[in-house]
């Protein structure tokens, strides 16, 4: 019996240490690893395709991107309807290296790593040659796009190449110069453009990067590089910092590179302006997913979120009050010419301040909700006390601050009583921009009339009358400087709310004038006669240092080799 007692510890030890008939795996096999994601047996590359898809998720989608507001709410074209939202930090001058509502630093580098992980591993997967070629080129295109997002904000940034840093790798990397970053993006686009899908996409591939997207990115980057701010025009006094945010010296021939790139683009022979559609070609560009004007867009699910966030606040659809988050300014409305192409202050324009929306460029009604415009079968009421400007915080704590709401991108809901799901892709590149890039570069190279030709195509599609001289309101003998102003205005209204104006004002170096200003709204009194009164609604400030964004303070403290932009 005694022996059993001594056996006991042995028995129990067995119980304790060896009892488990192996029930579970020892580490979670329900997780994907690198091996499973880039599987050497995944003949169709299904899972590696998922990894490619993820890179696309880092593309910024411009709708309500800055804490619910458009970036263009900081461009003078509009202000956020809500007070003290973060996007106003840009116009109030309250941006700093620790308080920047749109740094996009982390997103870009996360996206860049995602692309590099894909590029590093995809060769292990036995996918068909063409799929692999497209995949790699897409990853490289997106990586270039993320560098572009960094470039326009900060100037030159650390270029990581194809590296996928590990835990113990030193990533204390200095910034590359502006020139190096531009060259990197342009060279990448050149290198991959022919490996990407051809411009005509199958409907199931819509949203993927094509050769057109790569060339369009090249056009954009070269346009910026040729622009006054970057082309030797930086305000920096320190040459080291200046080289980080632009070229040290001006070189007008950089405009020629833009022209060359546009010609390369036009040689694709596929893209064109959307001229037909309901109610207009201009509107249908944004609400029809697939068309030949969209070169590349951030894909979004079909829904009516945008209609709810932007429609005037008086529209209550299924118990939900529309939010009317964006208030376009009077300054922006005034930028739209008349149907005859003449600016409202030009003589003979026919503008009537007591009926300010009559006879205007059709793009105005397609971009802005103004008083009297029809929406969901009733007139928009932005007069004092109207349904869309109730002036009662208990009814609506948010309402337009300017008398206008944003119409652009919204579906075709002037009739009917409710919204339905629709397409809302944010355009990253569209053909109208290429034309405007072209016009701008031609004008800067002194080819003013060639530039006029380009603008005419934009205006023709917009619905401006050709006029007896077929110049769409552009005066005969227009000078280069006048043409520059006209192109800048055309770009402002054509590409409004597509995240162009904010950056264009900077690259043209005009932000110092146009952003130190008073923004106006309109006060409409509804009586037997409707009266209109321009009222100031906000003042904006701009300092030279705002031309470039501050590198996030945290990043500077974590990486001693990063040099902050001047002034921050």
């Amino acid at each position, binding site marked *: *019996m005694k022996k*059993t*007692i001594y*056996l006991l*510890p042995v*028995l129990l*030890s067995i*119980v*304790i*240490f060896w009892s*488990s008939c192996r*029930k579970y*795996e*020892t*580490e979670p096999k329900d*997780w*994907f690893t*690198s091996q*499973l*994601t880039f599987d050497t047996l995944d003949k169709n590359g299904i899972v590696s395709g*998922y*990894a490619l*898809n*993820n890179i696309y*998720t880092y593309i910024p989608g411009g709708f309500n991107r800055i804490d619910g507001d458009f970036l263009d709410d900081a461009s003078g074209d509009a202000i956020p309807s809500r*007070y*003290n939202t973060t996007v106003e930090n840009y116009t109030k001058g*309250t941006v*700093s290296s*620790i308080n920047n509502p749109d740094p996009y630093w982390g997103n870009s*580098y*996360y996206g860049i790593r*995602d692309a590099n*992980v894909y590029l590093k591993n995809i060769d292990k997967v036995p996918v068909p040659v063409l799929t692999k070629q497209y995949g790699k080129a897409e990853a490289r295109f997106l990586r270039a796009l993320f560098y572009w997002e960094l470039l326009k904000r900060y100037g030159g940034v650390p270029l*990581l190449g194809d590296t996928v*840093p*590990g*835990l113990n790798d030193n990533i*204390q990397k200095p910034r590359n110069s502006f020139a190096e970053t531009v060259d990197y993006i342009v060279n990448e686009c050149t290198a991959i453009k022919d490996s990407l899908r051809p411009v005509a996409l199958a*409907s*199931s*591939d*819509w*949203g*993927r990067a094509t050769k057109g997207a790569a060339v369009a990115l090249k056009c954009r980057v070269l346009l910026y590089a040729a622009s006054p701010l970057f082309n030797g025009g930086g305000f920096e006094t320190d040459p080291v910092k200046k080289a980080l945010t632009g070229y040290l010296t001006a070189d007008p021939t950089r405009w020629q590179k833009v022209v060359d790139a546009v010609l390369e683009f036009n040689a694709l022979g596929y893209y064109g302006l959307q001229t037909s559609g309901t109610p207009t070609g201009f509107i249908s560009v944004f609400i029809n997913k*697939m068309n030949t004007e969209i070169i590349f867009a951030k894909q*979004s699910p079909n829904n009516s979120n945008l209609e709810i966030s932007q429609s005037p606040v008086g529209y209550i659809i299924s*118990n939900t009050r529309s939010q009317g988050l964006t208030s376009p300014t009077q300054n922006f409305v005034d930028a739209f010419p008349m149907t005859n192409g003449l600016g409202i202050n030009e003589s003979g324009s026919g503008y009537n301040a007591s009926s300010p929306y009559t006879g205007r460029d059709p793009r105005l009604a397609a971009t802005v909700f103004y008083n009297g415009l029809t929406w969901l079968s009733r007139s928009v009421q932005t007069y004092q006390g109207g349904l869309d400007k109730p002036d*009662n*915080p*208990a*009814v609506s*704590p948010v*309402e337009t601050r300017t008398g206008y709401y944003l119409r652009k991108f919204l579906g075709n809901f002037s009739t009917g009583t409710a919204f339905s799901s629709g397409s809302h892709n944010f355009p990253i590149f569209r053909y109208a921009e290429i034309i405007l890039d072209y016009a701008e570069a031609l004008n800067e190279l002194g080819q003013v009339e060639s530039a006029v030709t380009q603008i005419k195509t934009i205006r023709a599609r917009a619905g401006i009358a050709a006029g007896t001289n077929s110049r769409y309101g552009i005066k005969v003998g227009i000078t280069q400087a006048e043409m520059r102003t006209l192109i800048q205005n055309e770009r402002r209204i054509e590409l409004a709310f597509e995240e162009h104006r904010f950056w264009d004002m900077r690259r043209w170096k005009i932000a110092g004038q146009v952003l130190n200003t008073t923004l106006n709204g309109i006060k409409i009194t509804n009586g037997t006669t409707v009266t209109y009164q321009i*009222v100031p*609604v906000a003042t904006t400030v701009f300092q030279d240092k705002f031309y470039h964004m501050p590198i996030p303070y*945290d990043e*500077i*403290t*974590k990486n001693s080799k990063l040099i902050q932009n001047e002034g921050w």
Partner: protein
Amino acid sequence: MKLTARFLLFSIAICSMLSANARAGIFTTYTGIVVDNLKKPVEGAIIRVAGSNVTTRTNSLGVFSIDANEGDKITISCPGYKDYQYVLTQSTTLSVTLEKETDFFRNKESEPVQLIYTTAPPRQTVASNDAVYNNDIIKSPVTSFRNALTGRLAGLYTLQSSGLPGTDGASLTLRGQTPVIIIDGVVANLTTFDLEEIESITVLKDAVATAMLGVRSSNGALLVTTRKGKEGRQQISFTAQTAIQKPLSFPKTLNAYDYARLHNEALRNDGIDSAYSGLYYTQAALDAYQNHSDPNKYPDINFRDQITNKTSLLKRYTLSATGGNRFAGYFISLEHINQSGFFKTVDSNSYNTNNNFKSYVIRSNIDVNITPKLNGGIYLLGRILNGNEPGAATNTILSNLLNTPANAYPILNQDGSFGGTQIYQNNILAQTIGSGYNQNYKRDVLVNLYLKRSLDEVTPGLWIKAKASFNSTLSENINRSKSFAVYQQNGTAYTQFGTNGTQANGNGIEYQGKTDYEELSVGYDRILKNSNNSINALVLVNRDNSTNGSDLPYTITGTSGRLAYNYKSKYLIEAAFGLNGSNRYPDHGDTKLGFFPAVGLGWNIDKEHFMNSVSFVSRLRLYGSYGKTGWDNAGYFVYYPRFFDGPGAIFGTGAGTVTSITEGTLPNPNITWEKADKLNLGINGAVLKDHLNFKAEYFRNKYYDLLMQRGRNSTLLGNDYPNENIGKNRYSGWEGQLSWQQSTKKLQYFISVNVSQVKSKVLYIDEVYRPYDWMRRTGQSVGQRFGYVAEGLFQSQAEINASPATVGYTPQPGDIKYRDMNRDGVIDQNDQIAIGSTDPLMFYGFSFGLSWRGFDFSALLQGVENRDIYLSGPGYWAFQNGGTGQAYNHNLNRRNPANAANANYPRLSYGANTNNDAASTFWVHRGDYLRLKNAEIGYSLPETLISRIKLKTVRVFVNGYNLLTAASSTLDGRDPEAFSGGYPVQRLFNFGINIKF
């Protein structure tokens, strides 16, 4: 499968243990007399020789005789008296005085010390420990024992931040760490159960006390020992209690008129044009809010009064029985608690919508002496916790309550329907009584089994013990909520928002887990003959295997040991180790073992000869320990390079979402457990005939290899850095205790105070570049708050012009002015310094009580010093959330030209204000407080009266919890513990009766 196999082996073990040897040999007859402290003989006391089945009883003269050997340990026990243990010497006559057991106070120094896997006789361990016993625990009318510990244990800091029934347990921090909770020797995180079944709660604080826990030893431990049966007559106890609960405080919000008025002021301050903006309340509206002339259009609702009751009830019934004979002892208890929430209910609902909490707890502890050498036990805890709440969920309602201004909507329209507007579609009353209900069912079973066999036949004092435990927990949610419509009156018409839906019918498992635990220990406890030297040794192997939801099992296995040696009761040496680890480590979920040793020394100075002349000192001891401890914080396979689903991308004209997959956080292949080196030094003793007890301890714990993200985690990596074993913190401090207790024939009283101080310091965090020393986190307290130093409010534009510029902001009078630390003329991140309390946290408890002729009274005061409270956010600032937020009473004292000098709130802003909202000393309030945490008055009916109805004790009592609080007046009446506006902590007045028979 695994379990049945284990039970089978267990049965074999039982069979083998039953083979006890008969007792044989030659004995000496010892005789003795047992008296009580009044020298009256004690009849019926049981005398037992340890390790045998030899027992006897005292006769009516208190005399007994028993056969035993020199060196044998005898135990004399009698109900109503404390057990007396004695090791027989050559002298064969004994005179024993039994000490009366009193519920009123217990001298910690004469109680056995509960250690993790064993018990040490009083004064025979150097482990840092402190205990609170049943008599004090049950004084608090609370549902979680966490709340009964406040102020009672030195070194243990509690913070109760919510009073939500069922989840109102305070957080516990022991010397700066969250301790492991161990119930009857098994790690089990259950804290809400019958307080009457707890015999004692012991905190173990130093390395030698916790070393056997190995990779779970760093944080200290909280040991819950449940009550066991004792040989003696059965005693049945029944307690019925009813408590009235009153919420302590809730943030005070403005009435409609003040809200609207301040709203307009905020708009004006931000330069928003009153002529055009349309956000201003008109004068007519302001008048209507003030005069309540049109309550439908211009409502002024105190939402809190509308949906909550001033008081609610907590009822508790406890029935327990304990007793035993020489073969078995038992303690069983049953408890039911019914705690009401404070929401209003309506009879028209056929169901309850209040946030009630009900519990049913059953405890059965049975110990059996199977043979003289073999004993075993089965301890069982069954717990059912049922929660109920409005369908809209309690926390949602409370957060709406905090955020809805008084003028939002009429709570009921004229036609009796729920009011609401497009903005406020969640009528708070409708959420409370009209949104259905949710229920939560929690079920726990904790089973604890052991068998212990004496191996005296091998060598006296040797024993072997096998133990197993099983813990199963399940929490299930039942959703029977419904949607409701609200209506806005427009003239005679009503606009509807929302829909009146049907009740949902869903259920789901919130969490479920199970734990099994096995332990085999071999011990040796011996008092060596012819000397007072004793030895206690213990070696054990154990395995703790827990499964939580669908996670892979988490298993901690290893060996632990302890050796304590006591030389002539003068010198103590104690060593312990843990050698264990868990299965969350590379390469493939391997178990990584760590070795954690500790050693302690003690010197009982009072046993030295030279102390014989110092008669006023009854006890005096110096002790200390040093050791290395571990903390397994491996996370869930963080070394494993994982890819996981991304947000999904969209392609194609159909806009369908396609799967996307991305790299997870970088794996950390070098992960290991966290460690600490802990030093503890102490002195304790008693003077003046044991009346005055004192104890003081100093500790210095260095935690290292703490898992944290590296400071220089540059985003250029493009991924998140994992936690790495790089952090180093030091916690040091001291604890002091002093108590006086005295009993006379009629009066017993005690006064006791404990004070603790905990200081922390960051030694290493891979700090990023900081241009100035004051910005450095290293060297500051752990979790130190940083921000600007507020220097009051700008009083004039001239003052602003003369002050440093604020980066990214243009101040105006009434804005907070900040100190320019580096004197560079601008206020920016370089001017942020450590703000708030930088002194070490101090907390204390002060208790006293007396018992006189059947009356008893006791009270506990508890307080905290050097604590700060940071009040901010939409729950404190006015007009947050883009201006639509709430405003509070304290906002009335904002700065404006009319109230410039005395303002304690900046000028109002509409929505966020980057200057005033920045972290600064302006929002730091003193968090020191002193509470009358607990007080009790009881009266026990005279024995002469109740013995006629065959009752042993009848005691009626009244006690209270959170009775009075003294805190900083700048908190504007907010509770210093629960200040953010969640479910308020409750004040309780409790009435009860306890009957024993």
